[in-house]
């Protein structure tokens, strides 16, 4: 225990009240808050996706597996991904309706890569409440969601039913003519 010699150098401004808001107490208090806050970030960040989850965040897909008029469904980020090789008829129907009365207006051009109109890559999750739509139902030649009857056209745009938005197009790019990278 250190010796405290009280009264040796009396500070005329000091009082005996230890609760006085001296600077040092404020500084110590701020440092304490800083310590807790600094430690809070790692504890919060640990719930963010871990390294192995992020590793599966992007996939490469070989388009030679998809035949014309056919659709392949793969799992991407835990959700179904539709990769469809459209027939010329489907493409034509999609372009024809570009300026129809669409709930979520979008041209077909904006929903595929330039020069690759035949390949449509969509996240196969209905934008209403998340069910997986099936191809070949509904009167627009595209997808029909079995849960509440949303109908999508050959470009994956919402035409009928309760869904508010078109089927989402993920971030993807062509690595070569036959290979895409999604995510």
């Amino acid at each position: 225990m250190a010796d405290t010699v009280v009264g040796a150098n009396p500070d005329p401004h000091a009082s005996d009240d230890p609760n006085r808001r001296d600077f040092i107490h404020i500084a110590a208090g701020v440092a304490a808050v800083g310590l807790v806050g600094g430690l809070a970030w790692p504890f919060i960040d640990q719930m963010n996706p871990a390294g192995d989850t992020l590793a599966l965040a992007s996939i490469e897909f070989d388009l030679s597996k998809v035949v014309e008029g056919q659709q392949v469904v793969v799992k991407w980020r835990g959700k179904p991904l539709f990769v469809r090789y459209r027939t010329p008829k489907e493409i034509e129907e999609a372009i024809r309706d570009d300026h129809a009365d669409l709930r979520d207006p979008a041209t077909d051009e904006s929903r595929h890569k330039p020069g690759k109109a035949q390949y449509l890559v969509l996240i196969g999750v209905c934008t209403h409440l998340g069910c997986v739509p099936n191809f070949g139902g509904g009167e627009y030649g595209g997808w029909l969601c079995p849960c509440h009857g949303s109908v999508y056209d050959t470009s994956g745009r919402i035409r009928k039913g309760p869904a508010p938005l078109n089927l989402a197009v993920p971030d993807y790019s062509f690595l070569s003519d036959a290979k895409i990278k999604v995510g």
Partner: protein
Amino acid sequence: MSGHSTYEPKTGFERWLDMRLPILRFANDTMVTFPTPKNLNYWWTFGAVLAMMLGIQIVTGVILAMHYVPHVDYAFNSVQRIMRDVNYGWLIRNLHSNGASMFFLAVYIHIFRNLYYGSYKAPREVLWILGCIIYLLMIITAFMGYVLPWGQMSFHGAVVITNLLGAIPVIGPSITTWLWGGFAVDDPTLNRFFSLHYLLPFVIAGVVGLHIWALHVPGNNNPTGVNVKSPQDTVPFHPYYTVKDGFAVSVFLIMYAVFVFYLPDALGDVVNYVPANPLQTPQHIVPEWYLLPFYAILRAVPNKLMGVILMFGSIGTLFVLPWLDTSKVRSMRYRPTARLYYFIFILACLVLGYCGAHAPDDPAVPGPAGPQLLDSSLNSIVWLSRIGALYYFAYFWVITPLLGLTETPLPAPESISSPVLSHPAATPAGAAASPEKRG
């Protein structure tokens, strides 16, 4: 002391809340205005350190449980996934594994402080017993926690300790099978240890609540062992001890940080980085350092059942200590003879820990083996642990009761304030000094 509450709600909200759930009053009375002896030294800061460590273990533990998989095929790898892939997983895991060691370091200092200053004596017997219960729960929790990473030591340590129960006559083997959930330590055992390891810290927290309640009835002990006589002997807990405890806690954190960031595996065993293999036993099976003295006591006795009884008895002895100590004087500051035996007791505990880390047939000191006595040579770890265990039990059952009756203690001060008033740094009131010396 549990005196009347002096809390005055200041704002409208405080008055409204105080009438419905007086939680602010409770906080004020227990942590702000609570009168605390003004002469507490740094050995008293370990209560706050322990509370912090319990909080850290629970928070880091809950987070680890978000990522850990309690199945024999995935446990080891899930811990490695935490270390490698989970964001800051290495930090949380290191905090938790080294936190357990820091928790036990603090609890041992806390216990030894209580032994020295007689804090277990009347009227604090229940406080002491609640502390013993917390200690026992900590040991069980730590044992189960060490099994979870499912390394070689996790597995084989669990095998050894659960097999001990088989020594209980008649019902022993059934209890062991019941605990295992099978015919050996395996997946059912791991799963239930995970569940119980998650549960017990909250039980500990509840007992800690009772522990602090039991403390606040008589109030804190102090280095003189003399009761608080007047408000002059005390200061309000805040800010005097909140800040002092805060300082002690931050110094403790520095030591903790050295382990977490620079020596994360120093207190563990390398063999636990080998995944558990039931068909191959490691060369040495050794518990974590904080359980080594009990391991030494267990192995000191050639008979399996007696070893188990003495091992649990060494903890059980603590529970009855208040009734074994016959001394009228609380603090060893004024009991020079008792103090001598106490320091030898600390030495005995350290020696037992040393013994627990070594194989029973290893030499106690480097050199010739010495003559053979009973089952082992005299210069062996097992004989050294027998000496240590003998002193351990003699200290509580023979020395402590006898000393209280035979020793001549030094005169204790009249009150907490009186040794202070003889100090040159007297209060401005400058009361008459009495020539008491601090023991």
